[in-house]
């Protein structure tokens, strides 16, 4: 069933809030990775609002859906969405990366706030998500397991070990959303080490795989619906995105993979995201 206007508005608002939070959090931490969360905001918001069955009430239920952030460095956006869903205290967001905060520089498993697994080392998480999916099936749980990944992470060999095994085990309850933005730390992915056509690769590994415009929330929603209807194969959504989407000076700039905006840059970014007047000054105070 297609999204209605109300759903669209909610997703767009959540994506905008994710971008605002990612700028504020990395600015406050004076470290972190703003570019990825901005690029992923639209598909992550669609997933978290319309598909991922995770709420403050069910966060400790064994049979709820699971989420594993394979590209763990993009966690500012993940934490923002957990806060928007009521799992993380909003005040905590600005303690991101600070001593004693549960919002670690890369995600650490914490059932109190709905973080299902510890990640941060690229390549490891698709195997973990597959283990979760197998366990859910063994236990007769309706849970779906979602994992985010990226084009850069697809350079890791373990991703393809996991892809092989997921198809072998027919893990239809597993869906990976690949942030394909053609950027990695050292530059454009196609210059550093081109992973080429990931849809074709996942298909060759036996997956249901589709290319999606990672900023088209209707297309993302439709692809997630199709993934849920799969009964035999795991699903891969190759989400084509622009790193830094929504902030013109960050868009498609490898330098914004892992550098935090300073106060002036944060002001400019938040202004571009439509924050103005007293709200802007309060955020920057």
């Amino acid at each position, binding site marked *: 069933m297609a999204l209605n206007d109300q759903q669209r508005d909610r997703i767009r608002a959540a994506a905008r809030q994710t971008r605002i939070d990612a700028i504020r959090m990395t600015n406050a931490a004076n470290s972190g990775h703003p570019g990825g969360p901005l690029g992923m905001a639209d598909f992550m918001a669609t997933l978290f609002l319309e598909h991922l069955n995770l709420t403050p009430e069910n966060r400790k239920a064994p049979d709820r859906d699971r989420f594993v952030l394979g590209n763990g460095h993009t966690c500012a956006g993940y934490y923002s969405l957990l806060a928007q869903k009521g799992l993380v205290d909003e005040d905590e967001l600005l303690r991101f990366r600070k001593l004693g905060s549960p919002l670690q520089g890369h995600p650490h498993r914490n059932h109190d706030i709905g973080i299902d697994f510890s990640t941060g*080392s690229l390549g490891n998480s698709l195997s973990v998500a597959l283990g979760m999916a197998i366990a859910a099936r063994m236990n007769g749980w309706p849970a779906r397991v979602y994992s985010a990944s990226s084009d850069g992470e697809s350079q890791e060999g373990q991703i393809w*070990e996991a892809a092989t095994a997921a198809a072998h085990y027919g893990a239809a309850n597993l869906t990976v959303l690949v942030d394909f933005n053609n950027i990695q730390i050292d530059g454009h992915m196609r210059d550093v080490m081109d992973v080429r056509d990931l849809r074709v690769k996942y298909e060759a590994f036996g997956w249901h795989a589709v290319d999606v415009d990672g900023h088209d929330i209707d297309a993302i929603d439709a692809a997630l619906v199709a993934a849920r209807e799969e009964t035999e194969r795991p699903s891969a959504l190759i989400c084509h995105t622009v790193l830094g989407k929504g902030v013109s000076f960050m868009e498609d700039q490898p330098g914004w993979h892992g550098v935090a905006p300073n106060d002036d840059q944060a002001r400019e970014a938040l202004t571009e995201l439509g924050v103005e007047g007293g709200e802007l000054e309060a955020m920057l105070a």
Partner: protein
Amino acid sequence: MARAPHMIAPPDQAPLLASASPQKVATRNAYGEALLELGQSHPDVVVLDADLSGSTKTKAFGKAHPDRFFNIGVAEANMIGIAAGLASQGKVAFASSFAMFATGKAFEQIRQSVCVPDLNVKICATHAGLTVGEDGKSHQMLEDVSIMRVLPNMKVIVPADAVEARKAVLAAADIPGPVYVRLSRAATPVVFADEYEFRFGKASLLRDGRDLAIIATGVTVAAALGAAEALESEGIHARVLNMSTIDPLDAGAVEAAARECGAILTAEEHQENGGLGDAVAQAVVRSFPVPMEMCGMHGAFGQSGKGDELLAHYGLDAAGIAATARTLMQRKGA
């Protein structure tokens, strides 16, 4: 393997040793048997292997419980990751391969996906050490204890024989969090009678003496008992401790050995760097420093040969341990 046990240690220490001319059984065989028992007693136990299920002895579990067995193929990193995912959902995941590959290829996954989230993954690795034999240095894992014991949350157990291996594997299922169990390919002497009770985190006193203490682990425990026998005939009374749990180490037993014997010799089929010797040395310098020597690999890789030949070549048989014990006694000034 039931036989009449005879008591060597005082009753309150109560390890039960096997008869004088023991049979030989590989610890990996005991692992396979223990898994079958766990299959019955622990419905949450699942087993993963990486295309070595015939050699690691997980195959029998796979036949008995095909819905709880996962042969991941030649992909050890993926195996550990899947095991972590299963464990995160309440399963108790036993993952097996050869020690070289289980800990070497998958070290990063063990650290990030198992130890950081402190999950119930039990890595039971076979074919550890020199006693792999003819396959040579590519397969003779001599660094695994080191890289496992350095990891926070990981517990490290090196059974002395098949009796202890079976009981340690059964215990591992109920020890919370990650556990590494080091197992051997070769049939090695059975040290313990069936009545022996494995106590996690506790050294067992196999023979008492006050001139020096030999603290051994794994296949060198039987050799240490042989060495003590030889030393006894020379008037040197050696205490022999089986240190099957290397992490957490029984520091109390080490301190008592240091205070009561005044010299400590460690023995292990492993690099001296990072292994039992290092662990014991830490406990000694923190409690009651005494002269120490170590029988282990002096920073070299192994080579092809028969397991027994290799142990003798590198000074890890009874004769080699006794020789190092004599050197230690000279340092002690006895």
